[in-house]
């Protein structure tokens, strides 16, 4: 038994209807912690290489972390993952809200779902009791309708849920899983995996607080953050405006993606910024449990064209950019409506935006015509067209049937030069941060097992000058400010270590917006479990998770050739702050080789060495195919 953990993992086989719990020993938890660690473990242990991501054999994991469900601010999240139908590799993402928090309090460190129900079902987890219930009557309903129906059926209020809408049911590879209506386990097509299992929803209620080994130390840490977070300007900014305050400034330095990354300047950036949202459609701010930063915007509006229900949340920065500047759209009400459609249909706003941006560029270049789009003039800047296409994608109708599988697969089907316009790595569309500006992030976009995920690493612009921004890297023995476009060995080492740190945090699981240091995260794990856990173990955990995900992808047939940015980023934008700036392909290739080398992976193939696997205690994970 490990103090502070539930010490039980819930197993569900939807094919047989079998429900059981699994108890792992203390060594398991110390080696894999939770979140991304437990996800990686179960995917490698239980998924046969080459399994179809949408087959019953795929394994869908919902994994809170050790600190989930505790008093720790930012400790309410969970990691969700499976084999991705979008990339063919590992899908891994984190979601906020109360679902992870209550799952842990319901007595489980993770749920591992396998098989496929012979009809639509949902899971009802009530303080450790688990039932599989019929959801035939819920199939086809939106996320919001499903929530209301299940609460009425069970006679419960404020149920915490993980749910798919029609996009997940229709196996859209860019669909996501929504937690508590307005938070998303967004990337990699997990909604389709859930849909392929005929699993509509997991509803959970949990009231048993984890018992920490040293509860006063946990409370001290929580008190410290709740007292001090306003001293961190970024957390203060999140508290006041949420994300998306930096549209104009991002545009000024070239961070804001514009028109499928083909342009370098969005003249209407000020129209889609978070302060404009605050003064127009924002009706409140919400928090995850125990967190006073309260960064989550709630929007509601009703005008002649659109009506948006505040229960469906509000657009984050990624959405404001993905459905705004990336599409050349400046209509904030339309973006809020599109965000709502994504919430109720369960679509990943980032991949959706990236895919529609791809389609818009195809349309403008004549690769797609009105005949292809069903008469929709799908040019950049057309908000009505965007909203129509969201509907088509969610329901797999018309051009939406092609776009529902993401830009990479859509480009292959369309042909005629479309492939050059699909802005993705491993099939995963980019987060809304320019790799030509943040070139260390560009390296992480290339290499991260989950594809072009902006949360997989820290962003270069934090560490370009002296000041508190450097505190985040000094503890990693990275002492000098470095330019954002630098790809030296020192930069690669920094970027790699920050990626490992992120994967440790995703195992713990803590929120990136709460400014916890590495030491504080280690302290909370020590206080929770009573272990003599160290910073060294934390970084080793990050290395273990990173390498396990790498092995998983290699086993599924991905290679170093998949660690590749689209060609567009090796040339400059035609205007804006990055005019004249491009990524040097040779420098990026050198950086990749350096990254592999520093990770103990083969410098050319990126295959982890046997010694590295043995060092990390995961030699069991190496399938013969990896080292063939």
């Amino acid at each position, binding site marked *: 038994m490990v103090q502070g953990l539930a010490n039980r993992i819930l197993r569900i086989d939807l094919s047989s209807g079998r429900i059981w719990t699994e108890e792992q020993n203390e060594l398991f938890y110390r080696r894999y912690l939770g979140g991304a660690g437990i996800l990686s473990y179960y995917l490698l242990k239980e998924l046969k290489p080459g399994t179809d991501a949408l087959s019953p054999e795929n394994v869908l994991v919902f994994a809170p972390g050790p600190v989930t469900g505790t008093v720790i601010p930012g400790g309410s999240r969970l990691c969700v993952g499976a084999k991705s139908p979008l990339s063919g590799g590992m899908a891994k993402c984190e979601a906020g809200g109360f679902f992870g928090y209550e799952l842990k309090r319901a007595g489980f460190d993770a749920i591992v779902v396998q098989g496929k129900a012979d009809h639509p079902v949902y899971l009802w987890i009530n303080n450790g009791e688990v039932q599989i219930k019929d959801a035939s009557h819920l199939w086809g309903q939106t996320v919001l309708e499903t929530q209301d129906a299940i609460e009425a059926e069970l006679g419960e209020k404020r149920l915490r849920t993980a749910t798919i809408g029609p996009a997940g049911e229709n196996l859209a590879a860019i669909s996501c899983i929504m937690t508590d209506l307005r938070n998303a386990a967004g990337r990699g097509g997990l909604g389709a995996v859930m849909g392929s299992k005929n699993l509509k929803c997991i509803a959970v209620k949990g009231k048993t607080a984890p018992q920490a080994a040293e509860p006063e130390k946990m409370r001290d840490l929580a008190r410290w953050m709740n007292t001090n977070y306003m001293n961190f300007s970024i957390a203060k900014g999140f508290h*006041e405006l949420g994300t998306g305050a*930096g549209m104009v400034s991002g545009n000024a330095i070239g*961070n804001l993606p514009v028109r499928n990354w083909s342009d370098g300047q969005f003249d209407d950036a000020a129209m889609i910024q978070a302060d404009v949202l605050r003064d127009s459609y924002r009706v409140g701010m919400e928090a995850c449990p125990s967190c006073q930063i309260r960064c989550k915007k709630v929007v509601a509006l009703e005008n002649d064209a659109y009506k948006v229900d505040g229960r469906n949340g509000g657009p984050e920065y990624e959405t404001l950019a993905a459905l705004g500047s990336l599409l050349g759209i400046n209509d904030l009400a339309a973006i809020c409506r599109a965000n709502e459609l994504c919430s109720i249909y369960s679509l990943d706003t980032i991949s959706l935006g990236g895919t529609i941006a791809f389609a818009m560029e195809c349309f403008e270049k004549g690769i797609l015509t009105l005949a292809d789009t069903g008469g929709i003039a799908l040019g950049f800047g057309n908000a009505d067209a965007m909203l129509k296409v969201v509907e088509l994608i969610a329901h797999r109708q018309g051009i939406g049937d092609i776009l529902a599988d993401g830009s990479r697969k859509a480009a292959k089907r369309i042909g005629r030069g479309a492939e050059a316009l699909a802005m993705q790595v491993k099939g995963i569309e980019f987060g809304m941060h320019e790799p030509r500006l943040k070139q260390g992030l560009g390296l992480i976009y290339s290499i991260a097992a989950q594809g072009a995920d902006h949360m997989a690493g820290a962003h270069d*612009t934090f560490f370009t000058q002296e000041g508190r921004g450097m505190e985040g890297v000094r503890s990693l023995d990275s002492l000098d400010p470095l330019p954002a476009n630098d790809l030296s060995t020192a930069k690669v080492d920094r970027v790699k270590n920050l990626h490992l740190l992120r994967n440790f945090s995703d195992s713990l699981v803590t929120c990136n917006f709460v400014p916890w240091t590495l030491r504080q995260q280690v302290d909370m794990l020590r206080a929770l479990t009573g272990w003599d856990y160290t910073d060294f173990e934390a970084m080793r955990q990050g290395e273990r998770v990173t390498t396990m995900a790498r092995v998983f992808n290699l086993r599924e047939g991905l290679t170093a050739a998949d660690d590749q940015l689209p060609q567009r980023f090796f040339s400059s934008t035609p205007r804006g*702050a990055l005019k004249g700036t491009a990524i040097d392909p040779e420098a990026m290739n050198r950086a990749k080789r350096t990254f592999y080398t520093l990770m103990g992976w083969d410098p050319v193939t990126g295959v982890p060495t046997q010694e590295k696997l043995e060092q990390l205690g995961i030699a069991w994970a190496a399938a013969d195919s990896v080292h063939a």
Partner: protein
Amino acid sequence: MRVTIEMHGPLQRYNQGGQPRAELDLEDNLTVRDLLMRLGMDMDEPWNAALNGTLASPSDKLSEGSLLLVFPPIEGG
């Protein structure tokens, strides 16, 4: 020299009167760092700046007509 400065987000409080935008008459040869220190900004806070439309470093020199935007680094969301 005349310089325009915009401060964004929580950093706006350092601009004169807490205004988002100000036009300032300054002596020549000031750097970005010099100006921000003069405004009383806590230089320890994470910040980025764009000077005339490109990412600036603290040692970049201001000149007549410069437009300086100062803001917290942008990460995710």
